[in-house]
């Protein structure tokens, strides 16, 4: 049976804000996923999934909360007819229009909420703006307070700017003072319609690693449980957990766009243009049979190219065992080939997180040695007296 780990559903491509680094091409498109597409997900996707599978089903890729809660009520009642029992629903929001009705709905349906907050106000408002160009920090922080009052503690996605890297203390204090315990960091990558990154071509891996390390040290010193997703994913692999890079094998990830278009591997493939790969549009759920999608020649060709890229990573990269071969969408977008290896995602996300963890552990060992040495000096001083 099929065991996808991630199902990304796009209720609408539309987004009600206009971030400087947004990679979504169709964020002005107000299409809402039709009842027919919802029905096709219910009838063509969910029944194929193993009954004991536990995929994460995520509303994403546009702002999900601009679609009325009433739409989600109808949609959940349809999808839950065939969804695997252990599937968990979540949504990623900019927090601007997440109303009290939404909060009640999230509680009722146990839908997990993620908020996009780029740290302290100055950093957030610099790039996460309304369509009139105003900062959205105050709005999302109000939503955070309302969620916390309802005992919902969202995980937070923070996109870093090069200036952020000199402000680790401000970021730590921001998370601590606002009760944020689960954070995921990324950078503004060259992806989709975002053609430039604030990080440019400059190698800033080390600065990001130091930024993460500073957060970890502060968290430890203050006994604040700041969980950094990228670091803990790697810690989990080092602790003996299974490494599963879901983006390198077909159909571990499935993405259904509002119009029923389907892609797999990297969710961002929806935004990547490649004539040879039919823009990574592997079919449409309304039109195509899923058996045909699974066995299509385009999937086989793409899979073979991605495997060659993974093998290149395996041969060249010392972080391979904690990564598993990078993100195919970044390889295509940045290097023009799925068969390539290192990308900005590697240099600015996986590698700094791995290095931050290694240096944190190294720091722990040094602390112990220095404590031991202080202890010995104290004993020597006492003996001299």
């Amino acid at each position, binding site marked *: 049976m099929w065991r996808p780990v*991630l199902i990304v559903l796009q209720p609408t491509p539309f987004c009600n804000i206009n971030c400087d680094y947004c990679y979504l091409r169709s964020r002005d498109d107000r299409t809402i996923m039709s009842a027919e597409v919802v029905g096709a997900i219910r009838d063509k996707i969910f029944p194929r999934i193993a009954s004991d599978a536990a995929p994460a089903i995520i509303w994403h890729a546009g702002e999900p909360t601009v679609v009325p809660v009433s739409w989600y009520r109808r949609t959940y009642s349809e999808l839950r007819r065939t969804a695997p029992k252990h599937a968990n629903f979540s949504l990623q929001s900019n927090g601007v229009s997440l109303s009290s009705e939404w909060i009640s709905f999230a509680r009722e349906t146990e839908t997990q909420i993620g908020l996009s907050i780029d740290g302290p106000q100055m950093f957030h408002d610099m790039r996460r703006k309304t369509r009139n160009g105003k900062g959205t920090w105050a709005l999302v922080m109000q939503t955070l307070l309302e969620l916390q009052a309802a005992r919902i503690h969202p*995980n937070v996605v923070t996109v870093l700017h090069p200036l952020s890297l000199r402000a680790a203390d401000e970021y730590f204090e921001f998370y601590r003072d606002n009760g944020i315990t689960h954070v995921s960091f990324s950078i503004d990558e060259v992806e989709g319609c975002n053609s430039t990154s604030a990080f440019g071509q400059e190698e800033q891996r080390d600065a990001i690693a130091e930024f993460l390390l500073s957060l970890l040290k502060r968290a430890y010193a203050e006994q604040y449980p700041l*969980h950094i997703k990228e670091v803990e994913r790697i810690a989990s692999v080092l*602790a*003996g957990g299974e490494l599963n890079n*879901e983006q390198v094998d077909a159909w571990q990830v499935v993405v259904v766009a509002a119009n029923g278009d389907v892609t797999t591997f990297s969710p961002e493939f929806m935004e990547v243009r490649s004539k040879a790969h039919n823009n990574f549009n592997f079919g449409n759920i309304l039109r195509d049979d899923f058996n045909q999608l699974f066995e299509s020649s385009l999937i086989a060709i793409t899979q073979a190219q991605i495997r060659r890229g993974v093998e290149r990573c395996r041969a060249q990269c010392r972080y391979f065992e904690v990564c598993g071969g990078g993100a195919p969408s970044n390889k295509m977008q940045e290097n023009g080939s799925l068969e390539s290896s290192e990308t900005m995602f590697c240099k600015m996300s996986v590698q700094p997180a791995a290095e931050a963890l290694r240096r944190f552990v190294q720091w722990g060992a040094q602390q*112990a040695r220095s404590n031991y040495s202080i202890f010995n000096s104290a004993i020597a001083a006492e003996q001299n007296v």
Partner: protein
Amino acid sequence: MSNYREIWPLAFVLAIASGSSHADAPVDTNPATFFQAGSLADALRNTSANAGSESRSGMNPIQLSQWFNFFNCFNGVWRRC
């Protein structure tokens, strides 16, 4: 601190590295060794077995790997949630 180690597992890893957790095997932070899958598994396993009497961390290796990253919407490589 033992309670903190349970809610923030990296503190537990740090305790192993610092030698304050009675680990049998020190953690090797040389990149070639450290970045091997499972490089912390033995130290964590030994420590959690030894720590049974002083904390509630007596867990098996499978639980240890699941101990991290328990809350995010999706625990894989994809980073947009």
